């Protein structure tokens, strides 16, 4: 029953492009009420995996489930409560911060009134009220990314899928986003699947850290452990060396 199912589950899901495999058959479970970080260097398949979760790309093989429902058969209403930010934020440069957030609210299924209220609340939470009537084009990169995060979270999603959400943020912005995510997870039991190319502040709050390299999950890191950075590179380097040995034995 969907109520009991994991927030996100990949079952031997893979993606192959004409240019080659972007994601090897992968199993992954994001438990409800947890932050799950997907950490790997650039070009290792993080975005591909998140795109599969959201049905942006169809898996070449395997299955992807969100709240226990196969994404390939997801009804539109089933996406309510799934907030996401992949690649480019849903931000239109010629529109104001206010208009962008209200549109995001409407697209996420909020009514006119509740959409307005939610837009205001998220702008406050992400410290965007100062730019409320400014066009998004005129915002700094960091502020635009905060606007993108606000748009993704405007309908108070219980499942959040975020692709490197803090890569343009300064330390204060990163801490802010970290606190927001933690609040939602702790207070409402929401789940977060977040990617990062380094062990940033957000990855460090994860209940589970999965390390991905060249399209494969190569291990997990205990989040409370010390020396996270070193253990991450140990995993990646071991994988790189293993691949090299395989390539030229």
């Amino acid at each position, binding site marked *: 029953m969907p109520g009991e199912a994991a927030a996100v589950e990949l079952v031997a899901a893979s993606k192959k492009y004409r240019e080659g495999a972007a994601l090897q058959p992968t199993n992954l479970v994001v438990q409800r009420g947890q932050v799950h970080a997907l950490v790997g260097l650039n070009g290792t398949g993080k975005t591909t995996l998140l*795109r599969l979760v*959201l*049905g*942006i*790309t*169809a898996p070449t093989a395997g299955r992807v489930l969100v709240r226990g429902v196969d994404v390939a058969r997801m009804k*539109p*209403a089933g*996406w*309510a409560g*799934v907030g*996401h*930010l*992949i*690649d*480019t*934020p*849903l*931000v*239109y*440069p010629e529109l104001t911060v206010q208009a962008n957030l209200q549109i995001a609210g*409407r*697209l*996420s*299924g909020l009514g006119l009134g509740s959409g307005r209220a939610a837009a205001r609340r998220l702008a406050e939470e992400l410290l965007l009220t100062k730019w409320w009537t400014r066009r998004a084009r005129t915002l700094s990169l960091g502020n635009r990314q905060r606007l993108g995060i606000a*748009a993704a979270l405007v309908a108070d999603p219980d499942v959040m*899928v975020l692709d490197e959400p803090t890569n343009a943020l300064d330390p204060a912005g990163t801490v802010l986003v970290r606190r927001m995510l933690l609040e939602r997870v702790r207070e409402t039991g929401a789940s977060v699947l977040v990617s990062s190319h380094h062990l940033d502040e957000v990855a460090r709050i994860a209940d589970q850290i999965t390390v991905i390299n060249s399209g494969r999950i190569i291990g997990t890191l205990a989040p409370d452990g010390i020396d996270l950075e070193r253990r991450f590179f140990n995993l990646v380097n071991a994988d790189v060396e293993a691949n090299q040995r395989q390539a030229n034995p």
Partner: protein
Amino acid sequence: MSTAAGLLAFGIVHAWSFGREFSEGTITGLFALPTTRTMVAGAKLLVLCLWVFASTMVLTGVAVLLGAVLGYEPTADTFSLAARLAGSTFLTGALAVVGGLVASICRSMLAGIGSAIVMPVLAQVAVLLGLGGWFPFAAPGVWAATVTGGGVFGIQLAALLVMTAGAASATVYSWHRLRL
């Protein structure tokens, strides 16, 4: 002539409306929502249709006013001329949905704009070849230039409307089926 410019202008706006989501990368944000891409594409078409209608009214109004200012006495013909101008302008705008279709299928704003440039060129070629009103992209221009009516006109108009409806449906369908 004016319909060629109209086809270009309307076509570019249609291509922009659909193509920008791909060029600017916002398309990924339109997945996994309770609002389907079918609805988003349909809403875009509706807004564009209303915009074409409003532009038609403004253009026709300006033309009539300009005529009055320049001292042309309004005659019985004035009304039928204005109606023909309005009709051909609106149909030109309707044809421009092809620009949005090309942008959607090619997932590129530039491809859509390219098609908006090609459409009036093809229309000119069709007129030179004598195809005239039988080629939908040339038809509004032909109808604006000459008084037409009767059965042939009806068939040509039907062909144009079928093509427009087909392009609009194909656009919505391509958004429905879209996987990146």
